[in-house]
C-alpha cells in the first residue's frame, strides 16, 4: 500500500502538443456530454447537460462556495494534523529504532480497516461538528505520509550514514542533514497523493452527519432528488481538489529544486 501510483509520472511531459491534445480532449468530452444530454433530451436524473449544471452553480453560488469553504477548512486542518503526525511518527522510529517493532505493526493494524469504515465510530465519538472531520482526514492522511516518509528515511545510503557518523554527527544531525533531504521527494509524493484523498474523506464523513459542507449539500440534494445540484456540488468539489493538488505540487517544485 506504500507505493501509491504516481499520477504525475504518467502524465507526458507537458510539451506544447500534448497540452493542446489534452485541452482538445477535454473540450471534445464536454461537447459530447452536452450533445448527448441535449440531443437525447435525457432527464436530469440520468445526465443533466453541462450548461445546465454550470448555470445551476452560478445561481446557487452562495450556498456552494460556503459549503466548499467549510469542506476545504476541514480538509486542510485535518491534512496538516495528519501530515505532522505522519512525519512525526517516522522521525520517532528513525531516532529511536526500538519503537519500530511497536509503531509499525500498530499503524498497519489500524490501516487494515478501510479508512471510511471508521467514520461512524468517529462521528459517535466526536459529534457531527468539524472535529470529527479533522480526525477522519488526519487518520487518512497520516498513514500515507508516515509510510512514504519512512520509506524515504530508509532509502539513505548506509555508507553516507557511516561517513557522517565518522565525522561525529549524532542521530539528529544525520536526520536533518542527510535523511530529510533524501526523503523529501518521496515525502512530497505522499503529501501530493493525500491532497485529493483528504477532500474526499471530508466529504464522505460529511454525508454521514454534518452541519454544512459539500458532502452535506450533496446528501440534501439527493434527498430532494435535485440532481443538477448534485452535479454542481461534484463540479465544485472536483475543482477544489484540483486546486489543492496544484498548490501542493507547486510548493513541491519550489522546495525540492534538486529533483
Amino acid at each position, binding site marked *: *500500500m506504500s*507505493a*501509491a*501510483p*504516481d*499520477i504525475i*509520472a*504518467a*502524465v*507526458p511531459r507537458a510539451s506544447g*502538443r*500534448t497540452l493542446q*491534445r*489534452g*485541452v*482538445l*480532449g*477535454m473540450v*471534445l*468530452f464536454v461537447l459530447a456530454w452536452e450533445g448527448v444530454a441535449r440531443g437525447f433530451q435525457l432527464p436530469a*436524473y*440520468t445526465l443533466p447537460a453541462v450548461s445546465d449544471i454550470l448555470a445551476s452553480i452560478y445561481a446557487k453560488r452562495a450556498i456552494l462556495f460556503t459549503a466548499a469553504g467549510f469542506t476545504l477548512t476541514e480538509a486542510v486542518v485535518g491534512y496538516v494534523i495528519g501530515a505532522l503526525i505522519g512525519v512525526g511518527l517516522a522521525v520517532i522510529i528513525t531516532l529511536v529504532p526500538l519503537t519500530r517493532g511497536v509503531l509499525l*505493526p500498530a499503524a498497519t*493494524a489500524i490501516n*487494515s*480497516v*478501510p*479508512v*471510511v*469504515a*471508521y467514520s*461512524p*465510530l468517529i*462521528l*459517535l*465519538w466526536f459529534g457531527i461538528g468539524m472535529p470529527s472531520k479533522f480526525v477522519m482526514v488526519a487518520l487518512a492522511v497520516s498513514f500515507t505520509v508516515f509510510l512514504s516518509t519512512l520509506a524515504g528515511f530508509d532509502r539513505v545510503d548506509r555508507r553516507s550514514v557511516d561517513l557522517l557518523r565518522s565525522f561525529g554527527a549524532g542521530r539528529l544531525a544525520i536526520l536533518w542533514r542527510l535523511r530529510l533531504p533524501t526523503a523529501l521527494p518521496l515525502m512530497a509524493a505522499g503529501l501530493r497523493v493525500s491532497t*485529493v484523498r483528504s*477532500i*474526499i474523506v471530508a*466529504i*464522505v464523513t460529511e*454525508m*454521514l452527519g454534518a452541519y454544512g459542507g*459539500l*458532502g452535506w449539500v*450533496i446528501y440534501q440534494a*439527493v434527498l430532494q432528488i435535485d*440532481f443538477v445540484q*448534485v*452535479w454542481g*456540488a*461534484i463540479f465544485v*468539489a*472536483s475543482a477544489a*481538489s*484540483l486546486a489543492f*493538488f496544484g498548490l501542493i505540487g507547486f510548493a513541491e517544485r519550489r522546495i525540492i529544486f534538486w529533483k
Partner: protein
Amino acid sequence: MSAAPLVHPASGPGVPSSWAEFAAGRLVRFARGLAVLVAVFAAWEALVILFAIRPYYVPRPTAIFAALLQTPAPYIQGFLRTLSETLIGFISGALFGVGMGLLFFRARALRELVFPIFIVSQTIPVIAFGALVVLWFGNTLLAKAAIAFYLTFFPVTVNTLLGLESVDPRQEALLRSFGASPGQLMRRLQFPTALPQIFVALRLASSLALVGAIVGEWFGDTVGLGVLLLQGMYTENVVSIWATLLVSALLGTGFYSAVAFAERVLVFWGAEQ
C-alpha cells in the same frame, strides 16, 4: 531485470530446498502472526479494564467477540455480500485498467486526448458519484460493484502504462531482430516487464475496491458491512460497529494477501520494490 523471466524460481539462491521446509517456514510465520494478534487483544482487554474505559468508546475485545458469536448471521452475510461486490468491481476494473493501459501504450494520440479526462475523473468524490451510480443501476449489487470498478481501474491503467514504458529498448530491438511479431513482443517481453508495476497498482486497488463497496452500501441496502456500520451508528451500538470493523479488517487483509499471493506466484522472478 534483464531476461530475468527465464530464471526458474527453484534455481535461485535462498529458495528452500524442499516443499516441506517451505511449508514449515510458512507455519512458523503464521503461528508468530497469530501469537502477536492474541497478545494485542490481551493488551487491549487489559488496558480497557485497567483504565475503566467506557464501552461506549472502546469495548473489551471479549465483548466484541461475544457479540460476533451471538449473532453471526448478519456478519457472515455482510461479509459475503461485500466480498462479492468488491470482487466483481475489482476484477472488471483490473481487466479494464490493463486493457486501457495497453491501448494508451499503442495509441499515443488517444492517450493524450483521454488521459486528462481520466485524471479529472479521479478528483470526483466517489461518494457523490455513488449517489448517481445507485440511481443509474438501482439499488443492486451491480451499483456497488460499479463504484469499486471506478476506484480500481485508474491506478491499474497508470501503472500498466508506466510498466510498459519501462521496457529496455535494447531488449526490444534484440527480439525484433530475431523476427518477433508485435504480439510476441508483448507476450514475451513487454507484458512480463510491466507485471511487477501492475501488481503494485492491484495491491493498492484491492483496498480501494473494498472502500468503494462499503461506501456504496451507505446509499441504502439491507445486507453488507457498510450497512452494519450505519445501523451501528444510528442505534449507537458501538460493540456492533467494532465487530463490523474487525470483520472489515479481516476482509481487507485477506483480499490484500490474496492479491499479494497471486503476485508471488505470477511474478516469481521477484518484483522490484
